[in-house]
């Protein structure tokens, strides 16, 4: 589904490139973990997959079409959903409105369906009361679940997450990772998670390690 061709990225000079000539394939219905040392360029790589930045070399194809041809804004809108360590919710809204807003912006097939959004939040353990209060009143784990629910109510087949469990305790981490597996296997989406936690990586179907400017598949 998602194909990375000869991808290269550097910030200032090519000699200091984070990675070059990267060729990878990501399939729907599968979860991937990306691990690697701090500063190795995991976040940078993910931002390229998410269409938040342009590669210096090579290209990324979504279903055979280069994403720069789709247009990064259109790509973000229709093809990719992003989860961040810091949740990145709209802080002036309730969880429910966060979902409804995302559904409206991304033209989700469920757009405007309040019941559907509420059901999703309920499934993720939020009470009806919590759904309609300001999102900042929730705990970190709850906020991250709202962010995940947001990816679930949108149609994007690619879900990328940067250290989604970074701010969560063990219990919450386990629940969140399980959710990602469900998204991959039940919603048949492609889930790519950047993490530095081996436990998280172990749950995913495949795990890539970024080291010495190269990606390698781990056992």
């Amino acid at each position: 589904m998602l194909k990375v061709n000869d991808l290269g990225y550097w910030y200032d000079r090519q000699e200091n490139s984070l990675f070059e000539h990267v060729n990878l394939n990501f399939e729907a219905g599968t979860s991937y973990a990306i691990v690697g040392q701090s500063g190795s360029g995991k976040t940078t790589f993910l931002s390229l997959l998410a269409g938040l930045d342009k590669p210096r070399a090579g290209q990324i194809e979504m279903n055979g079409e280069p994403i720069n041809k789709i247009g990064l804004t259109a790509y973000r809108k229709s093809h990719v959903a992003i989860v961040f360590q810091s949740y990145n919710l709209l802080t002036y809204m309730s969880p429910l409105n966060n979902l409804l807003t995302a559904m409206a912006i991304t033209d989700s097939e469920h757009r405007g369906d309040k019941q559907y959004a509420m059901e999703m939040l309920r499934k993720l353990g939020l009470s009806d009361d919590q759904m309609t209060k300001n999102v900042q009143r929730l705990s970190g784990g709850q906020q991250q679940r709202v962010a995940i629910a947001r990816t679930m109510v949108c149609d994007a087949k690619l879900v990328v997450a940067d250290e989604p469990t970074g701010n969560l305790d063990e219990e919450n981490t386990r629940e969140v990772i399980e959710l990602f597996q469900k998204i991959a296997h039940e919603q048949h989406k492609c889930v790519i998670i950047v993490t530095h936690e081996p436990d998280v990586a172990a749950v995913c179907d495949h795990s890539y390690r970024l080291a010495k400017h190269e990606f390698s598949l781990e056992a």
Partner: protein
Amino acid sequence: MNFFKRAWLNLTAKKGRSILLVLVTSAIMLFVLAGLLIRNAADTATSNAKKSVGATVTLSANREAAFKKMRSSTSTSKSSRPKLTTSPVKLSDANKIAKLSNVASYNATVSTSANAKGFDTISTSSSSSSTGGGMKSMGGSSSSGSGDIAISGVTATSSVSSFESKSSKITKGRGITASDEGTNNVVIESELAKEDSLSVGDTIKLKATTGTKKTYTMKIVGIYKASSSASTQQGPGATDPSNSVYTSYTFANTVKGSKYKNTADSVTFTISDPAKVSSVKTAGNKLISTSKYSLSTDDSSYQTVKASMNNVKSFADKIVWLVAIAGTIILALIVILMIRERRYEIGVLLSLGESRWKIVAQFFVEMVMVLVVSIVIAGFGGKFVGNQLGQQLVSQQTTTATTSSTTSTQGGQPGGGGAPGGTTGGSKPSGNMQGGPGSSSSSSAASQKQTDLDINVTVMDLVELGGFGLAIMFLSIMLASGGILRLQPKKVLID
């Protein structure tokens, strides 16, 4: 349309910030509104001035041509004494002019005099000594056999300029109207009434000094009061203004003699639209014999009011633009700061795939919502601020305006025939004019009256204010939106 909902959610969630925005915007809108109100009020005052100050066209004998004729006749036949002959205005001519468009009404004026018979007149100690000890004075000038009572024959007192400008007022009974034609009804001044204990319904006797020298019995139908300002223009040799009476012009003609029937010294036409004064004059000149008669125009009151209102208006215009520009800058700075503070939110929206222009639109909608509330607040406050400012401006403007208009009217009055009759302006028609009642300090009084700014917040004002507000918001969002359009979501979300 999702950005409408986001805008609403944002404003309601961040109440403190929203209230602050509303306050700042209200303050800006308040000043813009005050400027708009003053400007509009000046506009209205100018157009009201058009209606009520009114300009006039006066039909009278062509004295210039008469003088020319007199001089030429002197040179040819030295035997006879030079004589200035002017023809009284024919009412048939006046009727033709009255039918022209833009002529609202007309007033025929015939001035003459008669002696009081059986009652005392008022003597003025301050006026020339010739008036003597009081009653039965010999009157003013000796050029024509004049009586001690100045008679102003008019069509209707209501269209005499001193009554129009309220410097003369009917205090008892009624004024002279068209229905008094052919009657001996008279309206006398209150001082004279007091002196002789006369009231409405009483009769007085007047003895003509010219023509038939007959005695007429007059019925008092009304008493008027001339304001003190009316006497200020009394020239030397004139009788006291309180000795001025109003009758129908037909009576004045009768006193002057049978050849004056259906004539008038002058006829003053009130023009409904002062801007049309010169076109009425042009059209009127085609209807009359210009060698005998002339049409003179007077729209000085209107011009004075217009000039003073234009000053107010241009000042108000400046307020509107200054505040609008300052407001745009202030709001743009606020929006720029707001957008900086909301980088994160913008990043989230961008990561969801929201287009940049819709984010800009969301900010714009938020500001428009703030604007709507602010306009309501400004609408309540605007009347107050506008009134304060407007009064200040008008009092400054009219002081200068009144001064200039008074001097201009006085400048036009030669010392000759004493106080003018009902007509306004400088060109005085007939030779045998006596000090008529009701002098023409009308223009200054009129301009004072009309330049009161009527400050009222109308729906149209608010719509206009809304237009300005929208433009200000649009500009400030445009100025600030560079920040949104350049923002890199990765920088905001990942660093």
